[in-house]
């Protein structure tokens, strides 16, 4: 359960840390191996499935920063995922239909350039998280869960009732957006791009977790009173984490829109917020690679069990119950060994 492994002193716990690192490396190599292997065998669908896992892992990594490290149970992260998706969809929509997005103060016709879309999506996600976070962080516990859910639902219904960008029907992206030097319509190239972003995001979170900011963030999860008593206000630390988290999840949303070449309000639905939480619980909340382990397991089970029974979520529910009751460190805690406490 513990995120303290990230900041643990370099000495003293070498064995256990090394084991966690082996599990992490195996997860990363497993994803890359699966994608490349599927491509080598000509299984395009499986490459796309691996790409989906990587994208959902990025979204989960955003949530993990606030939930796993900061202890904030956000039940509204679909908001940032969907906003990222709509950012990609809307920018591409204008560019592809030759309808300027706005003409003042400068003419802006939208864009199909992924790097630009990513930056705009992250800015939108960060801004939304700043507003929602500033209001939600006044509450704690179950009230925080409910208020983040409420904000997520507000944005969901806004998207449904706004006809300019498809409303309930969603918004198609006819041609996948471009990245300089790559053919993003080639599944393996898009997969490579997404995996590179996933590793960059995980590297960023590892760096944050080890920093002064990360120490204060993890202290905020454990004991806000103590954090105040050493002269650090938890509110500011948690808000900054929330903003970074929103930006990361919005980036994943933009990638997801490009993967499906389609954006719809379902990206904003509370089901997705719940799925992101499930990824972390399955993978091991607060573990750096939990979102990858959780998303991978979830998509694999959806695919395998879904082929056996339409009611696969029933069996999935049993598994989740088992994890919560008997393996609270999740998959990674089970494989790498948990800490006795916490």
């Amino acid at each position, binding site marked *: 359960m513990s995120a303290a492994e990230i900041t643990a*002193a370099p000495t003293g716990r070498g064995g256990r840390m090394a084991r966690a690192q082996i599990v992490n490396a195996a997860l990363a190599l497993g994803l890359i191996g699966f994608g490349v292997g599927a491509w080598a065998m000509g299984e395009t669908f499986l490459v796309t499935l691996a790409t989906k896992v990587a994208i959902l892992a990025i979204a989960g990594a955003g949530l993990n920063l606030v939930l796993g490290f900061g202890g904030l149970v956000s039940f509204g992260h679909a908001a940032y995922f969907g906003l990222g998706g709509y950012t990609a969809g809307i920018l591409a929509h204008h560019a592809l239909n030759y309808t300027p997005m706005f003409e003042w103060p400068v003419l802006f016709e939208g864009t199909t350039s992924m790097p630009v879309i990513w930056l705009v999506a992250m800015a939108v996600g960060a801004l939304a998280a700043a507003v929602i976070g500033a209001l939600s962080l006044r509450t704690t516990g179950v009230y925080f869960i409910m208020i983040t859910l409420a904000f997520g639902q507000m944005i969901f219904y806004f998207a449904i009732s706004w006809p300019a960008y498809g409303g309930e029907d969603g918004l198609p992206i006819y041609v996948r957006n471009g990245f300089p030097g790559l053919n993003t319509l080639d599944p393996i190239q898009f997969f490579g791009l997404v995996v590179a972003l996933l590793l960059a995001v995980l590297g960023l979170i590892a760096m944050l977790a080890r920093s*002064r900011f*990360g120490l204060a963030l*993890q202290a905020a999860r454990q004991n806000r009173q103590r954090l105040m*008593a050493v002269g*650090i206000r938890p509110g500011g630390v948690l808000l900054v984490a929330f903003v970074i988290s929103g930006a990361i999840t919005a980036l994943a949303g933009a990638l997801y829109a490009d993967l499906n070449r389609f954006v719809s309000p379902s990206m904003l639905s509370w089901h997705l917020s719940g799925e992101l939480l499930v990824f972390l619980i399955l993978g091991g909340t607060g573990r750096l690679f939990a979102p990858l382990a959780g998303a991978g397991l979830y998509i694999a089970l959806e695919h395998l069990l879904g082929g056996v029974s339409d009611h696969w979520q029933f069996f999935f529910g049993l598994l989740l119950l088992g994890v919560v009751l008997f393996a609270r460190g999740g998959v990674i805690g089970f494989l790498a060994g948990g800490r006795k406490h916490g």
Partner: protein
Amino acid sequence: MADPILDIRGLSKSFGALKATDDVSLDLRPGEIHALIGPNGAGKSTLIKQISGEIAPDAGEIRLDGRSLSGVDAAGRARLGMARSFQVSSVAAEFTVLQNVVLAAQGASGATFRFFRPVMRDSALLDPARDCIAQAGLTGRENVPAAELAHGERRKLEIAMALALRPRLFLLDEPMAGMGTEGARALGDLLDGLRHRAPILLVEHDMDAVFRLSDRVSVLVYGRVVATGTPDEIRADPEVQRVYLGEEA
């Protein structure tokens, strides 16, 4: 006489009809241990929380080094050098001893929003943290998670964290609570030496420790200070004997 470091004037706080703090004035001078005693429900914890900034008084003023603390929250007061320990030990349980004290040193430094360099390799924080751990007598326990510490060790950890705040004063809420005779005596010796680093406002139920360590004692009853004086004066005070010490005998 030296100017007081902490100066409290006319502090009052009511919860409904209950006057938890009733026109309290007291001060804390350099180099002293000033004990605050009183029966259960006398309002000691409420007073400590007003000093630390966790709750706001209805009236009165608290000054630290001559500066009014009204409008300064608990985090701000900690940064001004008010080092607090809690009645029930309050540390980050999943962190190691070293991480807890580094956190306190980081708080004192005022620079938390740094995102790049690993904090546990930052010698600007590690060196003072190790120093404070040594002064609190926890050397060799740096990498033990706080949750695995014995009760007395956790008390020492709180002292180490208080030291890392570069304190102007210590605000210690029942540091001896739950400790055996031996542990209480060892902690008393530690506090005895600390008063020269910064004065201590000590809330304590252990009367042996109070009378052994204190330079001055204030007695709080129903939210009011009924007596302040040296340990000998307090022992001899008939009013104190009646309302407080008498109860224990």
